[in-house]
């Protein structure tokens, strides 16, 4: 219909219409002349009949053209409405799908949280017994041979790794409200570094300006965040490299109201497609990672009024930057 409609409109349509009018105007005169050769072709009757026929034909042709034009306009409107409707359906379907995915994700996380809390709690006890047993053996057999000592150390390291996973699970399941207090940045960085195992092949560089303002955060929670970021950085450099921890004042609205702590490694870096997922629950680039450590970090930092972000260039290491709020009257 639309193709036909289009063929009857425009210059072509008008030309065809004019041709039709001329043909109709002359057709009856021609027939009459053939049937009655004695009557001249151009006479008053022929002219009158031809003229009336042409006018009637032109009138109906114009009506037809108007009808076709209307049809085309309506068709365009319907097409437009259809496109809008289709876009709305696509948008609503996307919203529904997102809402459903979010619901499933929340339900999944709730179950994980419940399970984590229970399993984590129950596992800490046997790990505690193992840890005590290792401590006892190390004390009693202080003069043991090197291999025995190494094996005891291996057991202790594995216990510590398991505890770290359990702590992530428990922290993920329940984040306690932050108990904010005044915290010295240098002290926070020093204590966090002190809690991490730093291999000999990792050079540590700390850049802290002499006069950094005091933070207003929960020191235990922020130490946990920094320890997590530093541990990740170290694990990103299995062949060794440089770990840099730097801090400086930052302003977000003209005033220096935040301190930025950046932890940078010189490892392989993070693939661009993974950067956006780093703070998503259950996403991990490590084989033995649960994918909760950075989620816990994000939750803890945000609970303290800060933000955390990751930047990386493949092959050039990664930087995790934590922005933390200052003591209120120093903002």
């Amino acid at each position, binding site marked *: 219909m639309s193709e036909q409609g289009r063929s009857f409109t425009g210059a072509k349509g008008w030309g065809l219409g004019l041709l039709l009018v001329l043909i109709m105007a002359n057709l009856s005169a021609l027939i009459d002349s053939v049937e009655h050769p004695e009557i001249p072709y151009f006479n008053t009757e022929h002219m009158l009949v031809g003229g009336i026929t042409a006018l009637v034909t032109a009138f109906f042709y114009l009506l037809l053209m108007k009808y076709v034009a209307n049809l085309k306009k309506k068709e365009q409107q319907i097409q437009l409405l259809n496109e809008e409707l289709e876009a709305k359906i696509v948008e609503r379907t996307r919203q529904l799908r997102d809402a459903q995915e979010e619901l499933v994700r929340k339900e999944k996380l709730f179950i994980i949280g419940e399970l984590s*809390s229970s399993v*984590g*709690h*129950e596992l*800490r*006890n*046997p*790990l*505690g*017994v*193992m*840890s*005590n*047993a290792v*401590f*006892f053996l190390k*004390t*009693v057999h202080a003069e043991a041979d090197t291999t025995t000592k190494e094996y005891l150390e291996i057991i202790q390291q594995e*216990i510590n790794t398991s*505890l770290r996973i359990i702590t992530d699970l*428990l922290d993920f399941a329940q984040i*306690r*409200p932050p108990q904010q207090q005044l915290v010295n940045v240098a002290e926070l960085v020093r204590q966090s570094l002190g809690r991490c195992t730093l291999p000999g092949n990792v050079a540590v560089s700390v850049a802290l300006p002499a006069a950094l303002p005091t933070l207003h955060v929960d020191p235990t929670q922020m130490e946990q965040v920094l320890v997590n970021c530093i541990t990740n950085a170290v694990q990103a450099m299995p062949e060794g490299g440089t770990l840099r921890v730097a801090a400086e004042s930052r302003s977000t609205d003209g005033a220096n109201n935040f301190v930025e702590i950046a932890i940078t490694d010189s490892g392989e870096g993070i693939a661009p497609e993974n950067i956006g997922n780093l703070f998503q629950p259950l996403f991990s680039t490590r084989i033995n990672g649960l994918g909760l450590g950075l989620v816990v970090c994000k939750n803890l930092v945000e609970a303290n009024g800060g933000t955390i972000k990751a930047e990386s260039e493949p092959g050039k290491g990664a930087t995790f930057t934590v922005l933390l709020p200052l003591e209120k009257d120093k903002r």
Partner: protein
Amino acid sequence: MREKLKILAVDDDQPMLRTICDILRIKGYECLPVDSGEKAVQAVHLEEFDCVLMDIKMAGIDGVTTLMLIKAVTPDTPVVLMSANARPEQIAAAKRYGAVTILTKPIDFPQVLSFLTGLRKEESGEE
């Protein structure tokens, strides 16, 4: 002054109880293991202890309630609580009833021993 500090260890987990007492003994402390809050309260009625090291989550009366009952009998005895994952309300109650601290399991033994060394010094200083 007693030759050795006497510690009351309370935990319903037998391997945990045994390892805690074994470590304390080899470090020169006397340790009495009991596996419930009820037995701990009975023990402080019968004997004097220099310190109580006690789990929070136990069958029967829990560590926080036991702490309250122990403090009613012997208010000056330091009580150190241990927990795999203490709830905020338990931490608040433990502080209210006078616990020295709440250690997260696995307990950091050097920290415990350092605390006990401090106690030992206090004891000898008093003498």
